[in-house]
């Protein structure tokens, strides 16, 4: 039986899964009524600013705060000495290391936090920063991770002296953090020895920064009378912040109130806990006044985390037809002066072992060595799930390298190696169970729509004329939705997520979640999931997140985990509501529960369509006519522990033209086909894809945080750090296939990061493809005109006829 007209009308009225409803978030933002952390203003609030190290590596000989303290309006200047009695001068990192909150006798990176100045307003605080006199003795810096483990390398972390075991096992040098290995080494090595074809490439994924438009900040307010602390903070994971603050401060977790209000973008940068948060809290406790700390852009880029910085050696072994038999990867990971990676606790290199990608590779092995350097700590994800971009990038690059070596077309080699639909659930050689995927269908669709064959012909023609054109493919698989609590936790808290829903008597509802939106449109899309599940229009469902007093505990929003975890919790909480509603409906209609069936927004007596109770009617009855033995009310809570990750995928095609006299790369076409399983809101999905692709474009074309040998960070302001404007940003075409996740309650997989993960490879592969005929197999990002021009010039490709 098809859907009746009346049913379609009711579906439309719900605004549930699949519709492109406009966003609930927008009304406030377009009228300037957002409420971001810097908008929080409390009576008597003080402002804070940091004194930061000008050196990459130095001993602190003395700190003289007297001049600063003498300045009218200055309330306090905190140094490590002041925090030490509270045991707050160091804090644990999510990666099992410790990080100095304020530099303790020495600094390990430029811009490191040395003293915290608190004053009546931000201008006075800035003045006072200049009046704090710090005497340093400069030490030699290490900025090249390949020299971190030299026998005579400077000691970056004297505090770890004598500790030859770290959080992830044995350390083989005082500047070594961990070695992480996965896969079957013996088998992989064996295949490599006998394989007809092998390729090897050194690939660097440069250090960069997610750089949300809003920097990080916090407002801490300690209520001395009640011993309670309230903190507004730019956090993607406010519940975790509450737990950390409670552990660090010794305050009861019930007396710590953490609020993540509106967040102006996060992209992974706002997962961690930063010294500024801790210092504002301590200052508020000490001074008994609210203290606001908001970093400026340079501080954000220079001191608050970073992304990537993976030096990767990729190797593939293949048979004579280009079928990959084995993959071997070695990574030297530059973690900076402290290991402050924000990965699930047991995963020091995140889920880098997704690096066999979309391909059926039977043997693989990965080794990652993490080392200290005199650089900013971090290693947070930049719009990707825990080192997934790095893993995806290395395989998408290497398969191109293999194609080139074998003289195979870059699409053809992918088609030969894809995991086939009938192989799902697929066990990867590096330990994952891929849930579902339709890789070949996706790529074939893209090739057809973009006429791939014609593009290759055009490239051939252009090459004859000396023109540079590149075609980049990326057929990536992501791993998101961390995660099953049996393998994923953060500081011991399992990575579930949650939804709590209450249906009010008159049939509207409020639902709260443990995640935290930073632009992903949760208020819009969670309501759609619930609308479909409980039969109440999404317009009548309020969504709230971010206030740890009211929202159920959850691990937050990053790693594209919201839809796979909290989205699933929404569906299951909705189903609990429906189960209770069914009991109430049966009571009202005086039939057995089994005689009822669900029909969009109501329960209907089977075969008697006019005998029905709508959810609205049931909601009212839940508060006055529940059947005997059933408690009143209509509420449900779900803490969802996913059985597996989800594995979104996509096929991207990028065409670039490169000016051989200026090195300028122009993106002529970008076609992005994504498969994120069930699509909740196509408008929102497209928006996520546009944004992720633009960040990928930025990474490929210009973003880097370079250091000189002395440890100076060259380029931590928007004068240097590349953020594309509307002018440089390419236009995108989007498309999709739908391969639902079999284990997710509504089949959704998550999409926020796919365009970034897949996009970087597509841009990069396109640029390198433009030089393939000249024998180039790899060029490191970023592809700024100046570096591209150098390549052209070195290869003699800029000759005028």
């Amino acid at each position: 039986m098809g859907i009746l007209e009346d049913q379609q009308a009711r579906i439309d009225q719900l605004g549930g899964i699949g519709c492109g409803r406009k966003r609930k978030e927008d009304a406030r933002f377009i009228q300037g009524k957002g409420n971001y952390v810097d908008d929080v203003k409390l009576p008597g609030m003080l402002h804070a600013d940091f004194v930061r190290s000008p050196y990459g590596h130095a001993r602190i000989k003395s700190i003289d705060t007297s001049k600063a303290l003498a300045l009218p309006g200055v309330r306090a200047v905190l140094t490590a000495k002041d925090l030490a009695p509270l045991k707050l001068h160091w804090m644990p990192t999510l990666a099992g290391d410790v990080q100095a909150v304020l530099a303790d006798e020495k600094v390990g990176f430029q811009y490191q936090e040395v003293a915290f100045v608190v004053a009546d307003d931000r201008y006075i605080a800035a003045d006072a920063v200049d009046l704090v006199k710090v005497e340093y003795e400069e030490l030699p810096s290490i900025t090249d991770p390949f020299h971190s483990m030299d026998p005579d390398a400077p000691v970056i972390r004297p505090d770890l002296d004598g500790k030859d075991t770290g959080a992830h096992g044995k350390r083989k040098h005082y500047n070594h953090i961990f070695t992480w290995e996965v896969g079957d080494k013996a088998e992989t090595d064996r295949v490599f020895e006998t394989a007809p074809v092998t390729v090897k490439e050194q690939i660097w994924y440069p250090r960069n920064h997610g750089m949300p438009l809003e920097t990080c900040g916090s407002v801490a307010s300690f209520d001395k009378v009640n011993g309670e602390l309230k903190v507004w903070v730019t956090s993607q994971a406010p519940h975790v912040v509450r737990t950390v603050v409670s552990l660090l401060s010794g305050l009861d977790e019930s007396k710590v109130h953490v609020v993540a209000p509106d967040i102006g973008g996060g992209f992974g940068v706002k997962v961690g806990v930063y010294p500024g948060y801790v210092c504002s809290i301590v200052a508020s406790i000490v001074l008994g006044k609210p203290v606001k700390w908001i970093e400026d852009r340079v501080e954000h880029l220079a001191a608050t985390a970073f992304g990537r910085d993976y030096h990767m050696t990729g190797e593939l072994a293949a048979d004579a037809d280009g079928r990959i038999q084995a993959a071997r990867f070695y990574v030297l990971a530059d973690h900076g002066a402290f290991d402050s990676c924000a990965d699930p606790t047991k995963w020091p290199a995140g889920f880098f072992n997704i690096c066999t990608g979309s391909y059926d590779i039977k043997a693989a092995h990965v080794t990652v060595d993490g080392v200290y350097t005199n650089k900013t700590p971090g290693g947070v994800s930049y719009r990707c799930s825990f080192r997934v971009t790095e893993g995806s990038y290395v395989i998408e690059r290497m398969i191109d390298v293999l194609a080139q070596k074998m003289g195979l077309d870059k699409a053809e080699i992918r088609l030969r190696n894809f995991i086939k639909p009938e192989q799902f659930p697929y066990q990867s050689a590096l330990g994952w169970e891929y849930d579902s995927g339709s890789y070949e269908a996706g790529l074939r669709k893209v090739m057809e729509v973009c006429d791939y064959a014609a593009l290759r012909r055009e490239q051939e023609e252009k090459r004859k004329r000396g023109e540079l054109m590149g075609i980049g493919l990326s057929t990536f698989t992501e791993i998101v939705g961390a995660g099953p609590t049996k393998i994923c936790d953060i500081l011991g808290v399992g990575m579930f997520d949650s939804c709590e829903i209450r249906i009010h008597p008159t049939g509207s509802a409020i639902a709260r979640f443990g995640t935290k939106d930073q632009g992903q449109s949760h208020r819009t899309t969670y309501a759609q999931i619930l609308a479909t599940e409980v039969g109440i229009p999404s317009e009548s469902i309020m969504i709230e997140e971010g206030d740890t007093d009211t929202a159920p505990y959850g691990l937050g929003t990053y790693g594209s985990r919201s839809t796979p975890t909290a989205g699933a919790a929404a569906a299951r909480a909705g189903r609990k509501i429906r189960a209770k509603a069914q009991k109430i409906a049966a009571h009202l209609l005086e039939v057995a529960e089994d005689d009822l069936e669900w029909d969009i927004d109501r329960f209907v007596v089977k075969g008697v369509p006019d005998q029905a109770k709508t959810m609205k009617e049931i909601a009212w009855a839940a508060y006055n006519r529940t059947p005997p033995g059933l408690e009143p009310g209509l509420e449900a809570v779900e803490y969802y522990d996913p059985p597996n990750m989800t594995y979104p995928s996509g096929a991207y095609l990028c065409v670039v033209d490169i000016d051989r006299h200026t090195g300028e790369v122009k993106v002529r076409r970008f076609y992005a086909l994504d498969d994120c399983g069930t699509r909740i809101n196509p408008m929102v999905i497209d928006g996520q894809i546009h944004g992720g692709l633009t960040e990928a474009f930025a990474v490929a074309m210009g973003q880097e945080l370079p250091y000189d040998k002395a440890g100076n960070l060259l380029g931590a302001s928007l004068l240097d750090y590349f953020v594309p404007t509307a002018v440089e940003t390419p236009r995108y075409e989007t498309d999709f296939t739908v391969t639902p996740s079999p284990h997710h309650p509504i089949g959704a997989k998550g999409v926020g990061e796919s365009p970034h993960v897949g996009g970087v490879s597509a841009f990069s592969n396109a640029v390198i493809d433009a030089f393939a005929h000249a024998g180039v197999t790899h060029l490191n990002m970023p592809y700024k005109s100046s570096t591209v021009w150098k390549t052209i010039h070195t290869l003699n490709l800029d000759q005028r006829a």
Partner: protein
Amino acid sequence: MSEQQTVGFTVNGERHTVSVPTRELLVHTLRERLHLTGTHIGCDSSHCGACTVDLNGRSVKSCTVLTVQAQNAEVLTVEGLAGPDGLHPLQEGFREEHGLQCGFCTPGMLVRAYRFLQENPDPDEDQIRTGMAGNLCRCTGYQNIVKAIRYAAEKQTAGSV
């Protein structure tokens, strides 16, 4: 310390007189003294445009304007865009075309687009991109912002015939 100065100016049609240190930036006066927190701060180098306001008929980055420079000026911020009849066509366009995500760049985008459409009421896509190049967005990839501005241009042109 810098000395105080009294500055009178009009913001969103309302007259204000403030006494500010001469070094105070307009963005801080707006946000902290007048509680108009719609105007945001995203950088310290005039690059991001989150702080864009309209000053005497021109788009300016209020993080790089001293409040004392706004003596007797007419200032428009995002809070002043909607009229008595409801949302400005640009505000409508941003919502209809999904021109925002985290919303942090949005006030600056809207106020810049407001001035841009007066400079060029019927722009094509390239002109919009160039006209908006002073405003960064990290979330949307601009494609829907361009559409949102086209939406408003069409609505305003239709309204004026």
